[in-house]
């Protein structure tokens, strides 16, 4: 006993240092693990409250800019609607109009685009119908996937997260691959598993494939920046430049796939 006390008075600082560092590293490892069951995150009550209030305040400062963005988006949608109208005017029957996808508009009020594993916090949660696994997009392209929800908030794993996998297809070419963020550059994704026989060109558009139940088909992701078939390989090495700057993400849409659960049930029934 005596010697333990002696040990502590002599090396107490160092022991406490080790103890606190150990606690920190447990937090770090746990948070980066599979389950994000951790209390300290921005969707907990205190910090979310403060951040949201502050965000409300600062959002007045750039209302003008945001309104212009909204207007641009509206203008594009109106144009699209008009062209669709004239297209369907010549058709004999309308397609099945039961929408497969619904969207929940939400606002990003906390984000990181700096580290290796990036997250967004949205001001919509399970009370508004947000569930884990829903896709998140904005008018320019794919943003991420909802990984955790509380009553009023949800945490979205960004496309710029080391664990993120998105199924991506090449526009107008029948081939698709897997998108991952491997670089440190927050504008570049890797597209894997594109076979070498595909005529892939620089500048080709990469969109969502629609195979994953999370995102609808043909949502913009980016353009091909670099493509090369390494010696003796069957697959391309492809770098994709993201369609937009992740610092700019503010208003987003959460995608609710109404038939997604049915598809999953069907697929699971076979694997059993």
């Amino acid at each position, binding site marked *: 006993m005596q010697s333990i006390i002696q040990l502590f008075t002599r090396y107490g*600082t160092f022991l*406490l240092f080790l103890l606190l*560092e150990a606690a*920190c590293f447990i937090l770090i490892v746990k948070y980066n693990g599979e389950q994000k069951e951790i209390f*300290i995150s921005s969707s907990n009550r205190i910090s979310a409250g403060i951040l949201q209030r502050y965000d409300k305040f600062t959002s007045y400062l750039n209302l003008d800019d945001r309104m212009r963005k909204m207007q641009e988006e509206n203008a594009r949608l109106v144009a699209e609607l008009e062209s669709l109208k004239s297209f369907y005017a010549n058709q004999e029957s309308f397609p099945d109009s039961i929408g497969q996808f619904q969207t929940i508009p939400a606002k990003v009020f906390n984000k990181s*685009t700096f580290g290796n594993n990036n997250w967004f916090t949205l001001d919509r949660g399970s009370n508004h119908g947000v569930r884990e696994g829903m896709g998140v997009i904005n008018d320019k392209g794919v943003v991420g996937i909802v990984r955790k929800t509380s009553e009023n908030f949800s945490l979205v794993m960004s496309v710029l997260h080391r664990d993120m996998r998105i199924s991506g297809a090449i526009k107008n070419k029948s081939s698709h691959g897997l998108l991952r963020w491997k670089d440190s550059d*927050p504008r570049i994704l890797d597209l894997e598993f594109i076979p070498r026989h595909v005529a892939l060109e620089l500048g080709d558009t990469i969109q969502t494939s629609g195979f994953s139940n999370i995102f609808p088909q043909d949502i913009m992701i980016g353009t091909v920046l670099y493509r090369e078939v390494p010696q003796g390989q069957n697959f391309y090495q492809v770098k994709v430049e993201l369609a937009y700057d992740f610092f700019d993400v503010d208003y987003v849409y959460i995608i609710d796939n109404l038939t997604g659960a049915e598809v999953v049930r069907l697929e699971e029934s076979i694997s059993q």
Partner: protein
Amino acid sequence: MNPGNLAQQITRFMVLLLFQVLILKRMSMGWGEVAYWNILLYPLFILWLPVRTNPLIMLLLAFVLGLSIDMFYDSPGIHASALVFTAFVRPLVLNWMEPREGYNLNAAPSRALFGLTGFLQYAAIMMGVHLFFYFSVDAFTFVYIADILLKTFFSFVLSMAFIAMVTLIFSPSK
């Protein structure tokens, strides 16, 4: 520690925390296309603590402040581990910088104690240690060492600019 001093420390804690998470955090994200910097000012809380602060208390304070910062940065443990390390290193740095006649009983590292250059030198060592540790833990592997050093460098320059400003504005020379 007398009550007036305690109130001062609590105010510092709150002001640095809020300034960091509400203002500096946004500046780290908002400028330019590739953000390679993260301006950190909150280590000033540890830097400013009186020289004779009990090291155990200092470590605990660093842990609490770091975790509070982490709560807003969505990075549990990363800021905390860096700040605990910084607090652990501080006595060694202070020991090395000790004036020949030793420290006064109530001395705290400041412009008045070290002079402007001396204080910035002290801050530079501490911030260098803090930022390098922070970005290393953030990457969690030394595979990205070039990346870590680059981020540390840019963040260091900007953070030091802020510290110099704060020192010139708020810290009396006598």
